């Protein structure tokens, strides 16, 4: 995916010759990363738009589908992601302090938490599969009144969480790169821009989930 490359493009510890100094280089990377995250906001924004339109159009159907969302897993996953953001920020901190061991440890921890998230996601998707809640020819829904509407909402559920999961997978790949780089002492000189940038990315993915969780799992639950 294009996203990964944008971040993966390895930054040399040395100054790249088209920059004046490393401060300029760092500022450029930071701004570039933020601009990239803004595009990500709009990328998910399209789906949030579709979601809001349909939620507004079919509130009852939405309430009905939200009963099939696994709130427990969703909540646990929220915790897991927040925890991983926490470890990520500690990784960045270790990089700042040039603590190689701690850096690697926190990166690995973040990676593990990311994998936990993805595994739980898999469990959830599997549940949906068993219940025939995957949109498409095999879709079934208990309440015939809402068959079509529910299918649309499950479609959005899968599109949104799926895109989020893809971002997590990309993030996991980036973390592995970081771990390798850290192990090879690439950050020992006090230059840690990649750690910081990928940290930003990771937190962003966390924020997307922070919004997905209430929207998809919680709202309409009581109706």
């Amino acid at each position, binding site marked *: 995916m*294009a996203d990964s490359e944008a971040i993966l493009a390895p930054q040399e510890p040395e100054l790249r010759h*088209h920059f004046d100094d490393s401060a300029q280089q760092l500022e450029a990377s930071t701004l570039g990363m933020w*601009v990239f995250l803004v595009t990500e906001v709009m*990328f998910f924004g399209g789906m949030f738009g579709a979601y809001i339109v349909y939620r507004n159009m079919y509130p009852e159907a939405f309430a009905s589908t939200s009963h099939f969302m696994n709130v427990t897993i969703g909540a646990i996953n929220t915790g897991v992601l927040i925890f991983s953001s926490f470890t990520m920020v500690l990784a960045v901190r270790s990089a700042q302090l040039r603590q190689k061991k701690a850096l690697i440890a926190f990166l690995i921890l973040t990676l593990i938490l990311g994998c936990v998230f993805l595994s739980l996601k898999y469990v959830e998707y599997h549940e949906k599969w068993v219940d025939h809640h995957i*949109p498409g020819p095999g879709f079934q829904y208990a309440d015939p009144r809402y068959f079509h509407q529910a299918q649309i909402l499950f479609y959005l559920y899968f599109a949104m969480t799926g895109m989020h999961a893809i971002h997590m997978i990309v993030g996991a790949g980036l973390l592995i790169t970081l771990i390798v780089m850290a192990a090879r002492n690439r950050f020992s000189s006090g230059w840690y821009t990649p750690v910081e940038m990928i940290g930003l990315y990771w937190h962003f993915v966390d924020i997307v989930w922070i919004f997905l969780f209430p929207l998809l799992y919680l709202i309409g639950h009581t109706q």
Partner: protein
Amino acid sequence: MNATLPFAQTETPINYLNADYGWKSWLFATDHKRIALLYLFSITAFFFVGGAFAVAMRINLLTPEGIFSHDTYNKLFTMHGIIMVFFFLVPSIPATLGNFLVPMMIGARDLAFPRINLLSWYIYIVGGIFTLTAVFQGGVDTGWTFYAPFSSSYSNTHVILAALGIFVSGFSSILTGLNFIVTIHKMRAPGMTWNRLPLFIWGHYATSLIQVLGTPVIAITMVLLGLERVLHAGIFDPTLGGDPILFQHLFWFYSHPAVYIMILPGMAVISEIVACFSRKAIFGYGFVAYSSIAIAVFSFIVWGHHLFVSGQSMYASMVFSFFSFLVAIPSAIKVFNWTATMYKGSISYETPMLYAFGFMGLFTIGGLTGLFLATMAIDVHVTDTYFVIAHFHYVMVGGMVMAYMGGIHFWFPKISGRLYPEGWAKFAALLVFAGFNLTFFPQFILGYQGMPRRYAHYPPEFQVLNVMSTAGASILALGYLIPMIYLAWAWRYGPKSPQNPWNAKGLEWEQSPTPPPTFNFEHQPVVTEPAYNYSGEEQEVKLG
């Protein structure tokens, strides 16, 4: 890559073109100038493919019955639209001239992320391959707008491949925009304040904003469409509870701002050319600069003007109509300021200036007919007719392509180090202007007469105007072919260009050799005067 620069001028100084040879030095180039050339060649190729489709369409429309089958015709205009918009016009100026000139104009050695720049070219090519595969597999027949539910449930052509191509190439556009934004913010030479930026840079900055903020939405829309085609979950299909108009909203949220991606860089080029060939500072620099940003911002709140007859709420239509008029104001400001720039200038008529004249006239007509479309009661009649076709060809071909041609000629000496044959160039420019008007002016009349667009055949009373249009298109084709030939010739055999053949202002002309060396400048450029200081004034220009 050759990093050592010779400081003494030798017989043939080392420049970015001869610094390194072999295909690898091109395909793995990170030099923005070489990447610009990679783009230049691929974009030209796409232009000719798209142009060939246009020629075929115009031939079909010579007779009311048409020549090709309906399906063939439907594929022709779809692929013409897709290729011209996503693979030619959106990247045209930014990815070639912009890539080449943005760093040079602000006094930087390269773009902020050279490797991402190269990556964006590869992404563009991959997207192009997907789309071309769709073409060679038999084509797509949805129109470039992909309206659901036709595209999602009824068309049995290669919609997914084409959508994938657009999805992928979108990231190329995003990355280019991102690179420009960061470069313009962080890499300006000492003394290059925002108030001194050439208007070319302002235009590209505004373009980049749109690319970065709008393109992701078309990307996700294409994903949703592709998935819908596979799953038939009904998100855009009313028989399954979906709303087809939602697709149109999401599509135009990008595609309207995208039309300004397709004009702002053209305006950027025109500002440079008009100033240079009038030997004057741009009249109202601040207004021209800020109007680019205003266009970029307002462009995002007018998309509903494509939906006036679609069943969109009339109140929403009203709001969108209002903002459509508002977004026209900054364009008007630009046109007036360019005209005023010529006042009491010292004007010469080299080819780039001829194209600039063409731009000013044709963009004005195209833009003013945009106002017809923004007027709801008129749009109800002329939407989806040739009036719309004429409107957007006036702005896109008469505006942007003219500016592109003008820019190519203007910076050709810089890029190639050679001069092009002025006589041929002037002749071709006049041919383009004449051919263009003959092609597209009759379409305004056709449109108001009621000839719908995307028609493979039509009632006989429309034939006369259609024949005129086809005749014009063949002149136009010639007008594009001639520059191809003499530019290619001049690249090899043209006379060597002096460093600054136009006596133009700007870092790229004044402080960098022609053609430029790999890192653009031999010494760190320092800016001490405002842009376009043709009269050599001391005083500083205030922005705004």
